[in-house]
């Protein structure tokens, strides 16, 4: 097992880090898409996130990481109920993965040796209540994308194959990363991501020197480096836990809801998912910053992340979608 670079030691990339922290606070925001050039630390950040997430309580041995007894699927065949604390799962979905491995399939070993018809859970089961990470998401095969869309929509994985008929919960935060120059993402999949972030290489020399130095220190002595950054990591983790509790008490008045709707209408964002994500992400941000209520300043900060990928594609508009959002933001929120 290779060790992961600490999240807090990543230089710059504030938007990306913020987006990931927000999904950790409120998983219903619905995932993060990180698009950017090569060598900007996309994958590093996602893999670093795992260490940052608070532990969750699960029932031991449960294939879908259920929290309560009644959630454990019957096919799992678990008799003894014992609750343990476990790291939030961050599951890698490799490119070229087979459908069987994603949804789960007939357990061949048991079928061959014992003649039993048993279900072998797939990656979707393992990712339940956690994160599903797809590197190079824009290169994912279409039929796997279809499958993910369906599951992400319903929050449930339904397997109907080889005489098996099984369903289990599959709620996960989808995290994707990719390089737009290698191919675009299907609009349907794009829409499933709550927040989208565009990352660039840092411009300042100092930042870049810091990137290389930290990476070098990490490579030389991973354990020492992780230890060194542990206080920072713990600080963020505590902030996430605190924000999760505070989230319920963050109020959002009618005015601010109007602002959300106004923004989305002016931008012509498709569907109502834009408003919902904007609202949820805004509240999570407010909670993270310790604010009592959702304010315009929060909306301003989060709108580019929540809305820029929901705009209708307009090849005639030269401006990047992020710029368009900024433009409308200043118009609507003055």
């Amino acid at each position, binding site marked *: 097992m290779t060790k992961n670079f600490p999240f807090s030691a990543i230089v710059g990339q504030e938007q990306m880090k913020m987006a990931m922290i927000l999904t950790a606070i409120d998983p219903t925001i619905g995932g993060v898409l990180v698009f950017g050039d090569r060598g900007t*630390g996309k994958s590093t950040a996602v893999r670093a996130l795992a260490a940052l997430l608070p532990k969750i309580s699960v029932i031991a041995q449960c294939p879908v990481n259920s929290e309560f007894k009644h959630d454990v699927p019957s096919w799992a065949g678990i008799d003894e109920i014992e609750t343990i604390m476990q790291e939030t799962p961050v599951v890698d979905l490799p490119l070229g993965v087979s459908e069987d491995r994603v949804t789960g399939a*007939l357990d061949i070993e048991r079928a*061959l040796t014992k003649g039993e018809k048993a279900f072998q859970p797939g990656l979707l089961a393992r990712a339940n209540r956690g994160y599903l990470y797809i590197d190079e998401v824009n290169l994912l095969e279409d039929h796997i994308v279809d499958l993910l869309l369906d599951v992400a929509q319903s929050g449930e994985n339904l397997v109907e194959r080889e005489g098996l008929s099984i369903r289990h919960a599959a709620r996960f935060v989808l995290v994707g990363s990719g390089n737009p120059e290698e*191919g*675009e993402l299907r609009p349907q999949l794009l829409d499933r991501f709550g927040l989208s972030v565009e990352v660039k290489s840092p411009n300042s020399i100092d930042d*870049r020197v810091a990137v290389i130095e930290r990476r070098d220190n990490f490579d030389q002595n991973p354990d020492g480096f992780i230890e060194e950054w542990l206080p920072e990591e713990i600080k963020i983790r505590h902030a996430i836990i605190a924000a999760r509790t505070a989230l319920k008490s963050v109020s959002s008045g009618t005015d601010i809801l109007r602002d959300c709707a106004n923004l989305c209408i002016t931008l012509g964002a498709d569907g109502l998912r834009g408003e919902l994500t904007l609202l949820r992400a805004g509240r999570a941000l407010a909670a993270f910053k310790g604010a009592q209520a959702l304010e315009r300043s929060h909306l301003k900060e989060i709108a580019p992340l929540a809305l820029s990928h929901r705009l209708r594609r307009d090849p005639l508009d030269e401006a990047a979608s992020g710029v368009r959002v900024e433009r409308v933001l200043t118009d609507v929120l003055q």
Partner: protein
Amino acid sequence: MNSGGKIWIQVIAALHLLKTDPAGLRGAVFRVRAGPVRDSLAKAIRKLAGPVTRLHPNMSDEQLFGGIDVVATLQSGNLKTTKGLFERQGWFELTMAERCDLHTAARISQALDQRQVCPLIVFDEGIDDEKLPDSLKERLAFYFDMSELAYSDTDFPDIDPLSEKNQPIQTSQTAVPTLVLLANEFGISSARAPQLALAAAKANAMGNRRKELSAEDLEIAVELVYPSRATRIPQECTPEEPIPEQETQPQQNQNQDTSDQDGNDDIELPNELLVDAIRALLPDNFLESLNAASPRIGTSGVGFGSQMKSKTRGRPRPPRLGRINGQNRIDIVSTLRSAAPLQKIRKQNTHDARAVVIYPDDIHVKQYESRSERVVIFTVDASGSAALARLSEAKGAVELLLAQAYARRDFVALIAFRNVDAELLLPPTRSLVQTKRRLAELPGGGGTPMANGLRAAGELAIKSALQGKTPLIVVLTDGRANITLEGMPDRAMALEQSGSIGRWISGLGFKSVVLDVGNRANPALIKVARDMNSLYFPLPRADAQRISETIGAELDQ
């Protein structure tokens, strides 16, 4: 010594560094085709590496990552898995890397990121514009174009082997800023380049049993890592205080002083010698490639297009019941899956000693679905006459069509013709980002080499058709052709040639649309369009909506 010999010495040096620190440097790319040079290279690698695991671009995931070992499973009755090639130790070698599609490249890249296949030696055997995916090239420390090397260049006594990686190397205070600044100077934006250069410098120091990085280590590292990644040549401004050879006390103090202040100018420019060293190693035609209209062609992704080569086999569909007829392939897992639940019953009936009883009814065969991809080849007249009149409007029309092509998920290619020649600005891609950028950068002016433009479009159409795509050529021009194929100004000849190229295209059976962007409909262009057997639209009368409808209809047929 000639340049080939120099490259060879570098190659050998790089291989030694790889042996010293495989995990840090990841590997090397060699652009070399089969021949004596490659044999020498292979020999050098064998000598250093011992047995090498060979990878191939068309290997399945099962081979790479491991999977179910069917034979052993059937024999023992227990699930047996094979070990994937990625689990092996030692050196890896990827041959014919130019055939590697983006998916395979992405998988290998992920393995590289997890330090699984280090070091990886990649042989890029591409001709012309065939090359390995950039995502892979970027991760490996070294890149050598050896296509110009002669066998005699490789006749060089081997250098002393470096010692193995043992003790950690002290990074000097100035090493990292120097590397980062240098990368910046040469327009290298990825953070991986300085990282790899640092690793190379350390490997060199290690190999020479030094405890600290010296100027020499840095020089070797940047010479090996940076030239292939450079996207620009630094301006000729000499640093006021070049870093002295011994990077010691005074430098460190200065750096500490300046680190608090904000601003790039405070850190001194990197050693002039280093800049010169890299500059000397840039390929001879480097400036040309930079000055070309599309400097990013060499550095950007290959687009989604090349991936379609493998589409000749199509995307996999669920396996279905079938017979083995020698042409289809058995899907073993589904076959076993279908047989598995019945094993108990079958064994009771047959008293067979076999671990698994499979009946012909269980056989599932693999299925693929292949679908012809469309590619719209925009051939845009960027000559002076068109530019004056309505180049911007033509661009607008192309963008409108692009939006449509994007919605239909077609591939888009862009060819521009001006002055005396045509140029492929964008090979078939699905990336709207790139297309828009290229179109915006499209300069105007010069003569109208229409025949050249049409020929380039026709050639690209043939190439696309060979890859199993359906091409559609869309020509935007005012039809005032005045440059012949040979690049000579001759109006009559130019039109004549355009007509014959047009007939060639129509003879090949490709569909085409001609949009007249002139102020008035041009009879000469109508004739060429007729020769091409294509639809003709004068832009003044055809509004944007109608154009896109027509092209859409043309695509649907």
